[in-house]
């Protein structure tokens, strides 16, 4: 406590002799030297003003971009969770028995219902900027796909996606969930 007080006192006291000194210095200066000093000061202020102007401009640009990003990607976390449901729905549709002639009417209706629900769900997501893309057959792209395994393939060139466990999901162009894929490597095709 005492040390703090002492520090405060010191801080209060020090400026007084400094100002006095500065005043005597100014008085002692020749007009030319005084002009030079002021010019240097003006230059310094000008520099600072320009910097702060530029800073302001940067700040405005950044604020605009931040608002735009916040608007476009506010639902990113929510979208990432929701697409999981879409994926499950897709898996559900895929696991239904294949359509056969004379199958039970109930199964047909069930399949129809599942498929239309999936279609409408994907439509809703798309309207809100969430798009789904199936990468099978494309060249592996680390910006969109997550490589889970490599597998020899006789039909595909090395580096081609031969199997996708999940699709790629994007929100307004930004990746929210990469596709989990199996990539071709070392098959007969590669040796050709």
């Amino acid at each position: 406590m005492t040390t703090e007080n002492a520090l405060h006192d010191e801080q209060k006291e020090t400026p007084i002799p400094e100002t006095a000194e500065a005043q005597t210095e100014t008085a002692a200066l020749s007009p030319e030297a005084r002009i030079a000093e002021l010019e240097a000061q003006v230059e310094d202020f000008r520099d600072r003003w320009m910097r702060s102007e530029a800073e302001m401009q940067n700040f405005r640009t950044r604020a605009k971009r931040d608002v735009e990003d916040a608007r476009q990607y506010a639902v990113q976390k929510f979208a990432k969770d929701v697409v999981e449901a879409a994926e499950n729905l897709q898996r559900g549709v895929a696991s239904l028995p294949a359509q056969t002639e004379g199958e039970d009417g109930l199964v047909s209706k069930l399949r129809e219902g599942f498929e239309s629900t999936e279609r409408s769900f994907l439509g809703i997501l798309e309207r809100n900027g969430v798009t789904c893309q199936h990468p099978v057959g494309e060249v592996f792209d680390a910006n969109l796909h997550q490589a889970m395994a490599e597998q020899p393939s006789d039909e595909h060139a090395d580096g081609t996606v031969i199997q996708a466990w999940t699709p790629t999901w994007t929100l307004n162009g930004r990746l929210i969930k990469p596709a989990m894929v199996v990539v071709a490597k070392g098959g007969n095709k590669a040796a050709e």
Partner: protein
Amino acid sequence: MSKVIGIDLGTTNSCVAIREGDETRVIENSEGARTTPSMVAFTANGERLVGQSAKRQAVTNPSDTLYAVKRLIGRRSDDPTVAKDKEMVPYEIVRGDNGDAGCALAAKTTRRHRSRLSCWAR
């Protein structure tokens, strides 16, 4: 006015923050994540991948995907920790020209300084 940028260069993930006025803001990467994997990869076609994308292709390119290189910074190639790392990582750890531990890359066949590699991780 000068700006202050803080970088947390982690072994696994890295994070960058900026001091704005009286508050600190973490800068998000292009995918909106606040941390980025500390990984660098060199693909067969000469491309350099950093962060998330490097991590995603690690399975397809293990010998040229570098991670945890922070563990090598400041270590000589004969360091016991480096010897242990050599057995654990899929990329090759070699002796640099000055005796430091470095990484050898198959894709580029050049040796690069591991401290520089850490810089690319962001």
